[in-house]
């Protein structure tokens, strides 16, 4: 079930989808296990029974765009699915799709999502049901178990492929890799919520500190990654691990990309921009000085006003 996909499509996932799915799951879970003793029913559970479901499964659709070989998943919304009868509420899906089309006319349904630890056989039913909307839907699976030891995002993306098993062509799920894609605004708000950056003006010092801390943590990550690579290479040199040529090729190509930009025009542009910024700083400082001087002059005038009343002396400056 966990083979790698061979379709060659690249998948890009936006953080909004991840937060959406997690929010959906948290909501359903909290509504099922209410703090008061109110029995509420959510979908994905046995209706009518006040069972404490620790890990309810939630289902939904993911939408986005597919341009050529790149599939970009932007957003998601919930679906109604009854696991006991294994029916998907079609009218609901269509209504929701219509609503989302009005606001995001470019997006269309790319697949569906669910929570759980592994892809199930029963998931194939939903997958097939969606195949009439999109011939090759994707299945995004989020594992809601909070495991502090794990370093990787518990999100996996599956595609379906037709394989011949025991002589019968069957659809099975295969893994695909994906990258996290983000726009600037998304990144800032995720950063804001994740790391609780100072939201208000604060002093210039706190802003500077926040900005530099962000960059610092990013550089630390880069450093640790490079260190891992370095240790790996050193071990290979000592023949502790067998030589992996493809990996060596990748590392060498990575190294060959540095320095990133070496053209003269880049240097010129860089210096020009640098000078521009320095100029802005200079102008701001001049404005600041003018304002301070102005204040000082006014205070001077007010203080020494009485002495210069006679003699028709006009403004000091």
């Amino acid at each position, binding site marked *: 079930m966990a083979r790698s996909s061979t379709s060659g499509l690249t998948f890009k996932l936006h953080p909004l989808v991840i937060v959406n799915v997690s929010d959906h799951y948290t*909501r359903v879970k909290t509504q099922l296990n209410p703090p008061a003793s109110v029995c509420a029913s959510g979908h994905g559970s046995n209706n009518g029974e006040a069972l404490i479901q620790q890990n309810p499964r939630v289902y939904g659709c993911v939408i986005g765009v597919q341009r050529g070989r790149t599939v970009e998943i932007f957003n998601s919304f919930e679906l109604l699915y009854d696991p006991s009868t294994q029916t998907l509420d079609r009218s609901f899906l269509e209504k929701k799709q219509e609503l989302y089309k009005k606001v995001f006319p470019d997006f269309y349904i790319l697949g569906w999502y669910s929570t759980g630890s592994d892809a199930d056989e029963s998931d194939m039913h939903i997958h097939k049901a969606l195949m009439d909307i999109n011939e090759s839907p994707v299945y995004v699976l989020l594992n809601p178990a909070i495991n502090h030891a794990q370093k990787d*995002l518990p999100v996996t993306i599956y595609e379906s492929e037709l394989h011949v098993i025991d002589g019968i062509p069957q659809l099975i799920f295969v893994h695909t890799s994906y990258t996290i894609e983000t726009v600037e605004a*998304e990144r800032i708000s995720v950063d804001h919520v994740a790391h609780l950056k100072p939201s208000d003006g604060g002093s210039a010092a706190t802003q500077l500190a926040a900005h530099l801390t962000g*960059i610092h943590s990013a*550089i630390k990550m880069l450093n640790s990654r490079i260190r891992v690579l370095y240790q790996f290479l050193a071990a290979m040199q000592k023949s502790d691990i067998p030589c992996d040529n493809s990996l060596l090729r990748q590392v060498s190509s990575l190294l060959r990309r540095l320095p*990133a*930009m070496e053209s003269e025009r880049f240097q010129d542009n860089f210096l020009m921009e640098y000078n521009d910024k320095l100029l802005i700083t200079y102008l*701001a400082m001049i*404005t600041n000085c003018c304002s301070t001087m102005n204040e000082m002059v006014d205070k001077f005038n007010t203080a020494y006003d009485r002495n210069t009343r006679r003699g028709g002396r006009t403004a000091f400056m």
Partner: protein
Amino acid sequence: MEGSSTMMARKTWELENNIITVDQPDSNDTIFYYDDTAQSRFQQEKPWANDPHYFKRVKISALALLKMVVHARSGGNIEIMGLMQGKTDGDAIIVMDAFALPVEGTETRVNAQADAYEYMVEYSQTNKLAGRLENVVGWYHSHPGYGCWLSGIDVSTQRLNQQYQEPFLAVVIDPTRTASAGKVEIGAFRTYSEGYKPPDEPISEYQTIPLNKIEDFGVHCKQYYSLDITYFKSSLDSHLLDLLWNKYWVNTLSSSPLLGSADYVAGQISDLAEKLEQAESHLNHSRFGGIVPSSLHRKKEDESQLTKITRDSSKITVEQVHGLMSQVIKDVLFNSVRQSNNKSPNELSDTEPMITS
């Protein structure tokens, strides 16, 4: 993953800014529970009817913030609007989710309400089926590039809303300033009813308003008050966001705020120049009026005008310098790689002046 120094820094910051982190992961999520009976009781009691300043705080969920900012940014330079769903909790309004409305522009907003209402009703119905039980508690819209405040039309719309759809909240987002400054520009407001004179309160946070909008801002700024905004997220959200950082640091390092906001900065600087000219002409008038006490007041006004300009200019500069710092850091990291047998030592001397100042 985090070093001890960052932990210390974060803890100090959290202390300074009164962040209340709930230790038990479970109780953190109780905010997600929608208690129907308690909410309807609150609706009937209407404690806000007597106190125009009743609601003081806003709690926005991570999801709602993300959705609103992404939607606002996707609109580019056009104002967009949407609705927020949530509930109330004492004197706080809690925003759990947000969704976009298929309307654009400011002038057409009053007419577009009919279309938007239909969409809203359908969306709320489908949401309730899908397990999102909250009601609409407010609306948000964007002011791309000109700050978070309520314009005249906004004030009248919100007044109407507060008459018929209480409890209701107005949120304004500025996606351009968010992208340029690197922090989220958002404001939450509630209007006073007409004729109500609020007790004079100092403006909480100063923000620069472009010259063509400053009149609109000034006329109405006393008719509403802003609420404090805090954010919350579920335990699963925090966990996922922490892990997300593993993939994400690449974007942080590679982001170039200078490139994206060049237009906006140019606009800001020209606006600042105009304000400076205005201030200068004011200054000239009062100068030649002689040193008469009545002109002292005008001088005070001009001075504060000049200080405002100074503050604006420093803000612009600070943002630019931050962007520049990122560029220089990236340059040092990725461009000044020197191998031992490098054939171009003159490039080394070129990079030196960039770093040493």
